[in-house]
């Protein structure tokens, strides 16, 4: 199925354009991008602290990932990537004037978000059973700090997806007007992008 150039409204703002809506435009709105860059700066600081801590405690950072539950980390990555895919599909559906389908895709994304949270809680319980706690060593302190912070982001971003579903249901997001949905989608993808770096740092690289 193809969306042609003539189908686009200018960045979902109601003005019809012959160009794709994101061509040279800010996807969503400026406010969401201030938020996205602020969040990415926060994660950047975590990553810098990780590099320094790893340089000072190489043994702990070498052994740490081996003790973690790689399956849980991998399933979480699957859940987030799949949810991002569903959100992108939801945006494509509203552009094709199909809010019902858009709502269905968003519910699937919310389910993936919930799945992520369930897997993370299970992983934390599994860790405690293995004797891995926040103060076990510097690697695990870093691990809990980064993953719990990311978990909070997934939590409130899932809430924003629920808000988007509500807006679609009451008809506030339409083919002509869906800047809010585009903004929420961008934020959700940012949460996914942060995990794209966190997953290899904590579970793969030694």
């Amino acid at each position, binding site marked *: 199925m*193809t969306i042609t150039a003539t189908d686009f409204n200018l960045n979902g703002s109601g003005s019809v354009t012959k160009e794709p809506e*994101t061509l040279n*435009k800010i996807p969503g709105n400026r406010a969401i991008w201030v938020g996205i860059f602020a969040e990415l700066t926060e994660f950047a600081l975590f990553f810098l602290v990780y590099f320094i801590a*790893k340089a000072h405690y190489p043994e702990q950072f070498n052994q740490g990932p081996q003790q973690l539950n790689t399956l849980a*980390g991998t399933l979480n990555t699957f859940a987030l990537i799949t949810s991002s895919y569903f959100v992108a599909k939801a945006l494509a559906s509203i552009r094709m004037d199909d809010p019902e389908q858009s709502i269905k895709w968003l519910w699937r994304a919310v389910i993936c978000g919930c799945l992520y949270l369930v897997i993370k809680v299970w992983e934390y319980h599994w860790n405690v059973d293995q004797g891995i706690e926040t103060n076990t060593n510097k690697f695990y302190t870093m691990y809990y700090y980064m993953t719990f912070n990311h978990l909070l982001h997934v939590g409130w971003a899932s809430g924003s997806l629920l808000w988007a579903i509500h807006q679609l249901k009451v008809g506030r997001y339409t083919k002509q007007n869906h800047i809010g949905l585009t903004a929420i989608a961008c934020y959700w993808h940012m949460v996914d992008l942060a995990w*794209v770096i966190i*997953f290899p740092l904590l579970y793969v690289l030694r």
Partner: protein
Amino acid sequence: MIKNIFTLNALDISWVLLMIITSANAFVAETAEPSLAITAIICCSIAYKGRRIMDYFMELNHANETIQFFMRSYFHVFPALIFLSDLFSEELASLTTLS
């Protein structure tokens, strides 16, 4: 000219590629011994996954150039920093040691 850029197929292909790369990363995590070569491969996979999500899910591939620049830079700089911090870990430790 711009017709056919936004195809749903591009989304599907991106999802499949991202899942395959994630599975490969998990396989590396479980089997490979740490080395600079493995770190380099993982860093490339981070950069590629980030680019794929930004271009096709976030649709930044023809969005505002400033946003494109900063977002793409993020996914060039951090994979590079991961590799460099591994390569020069002793220097980094001495640079960040409080005397």
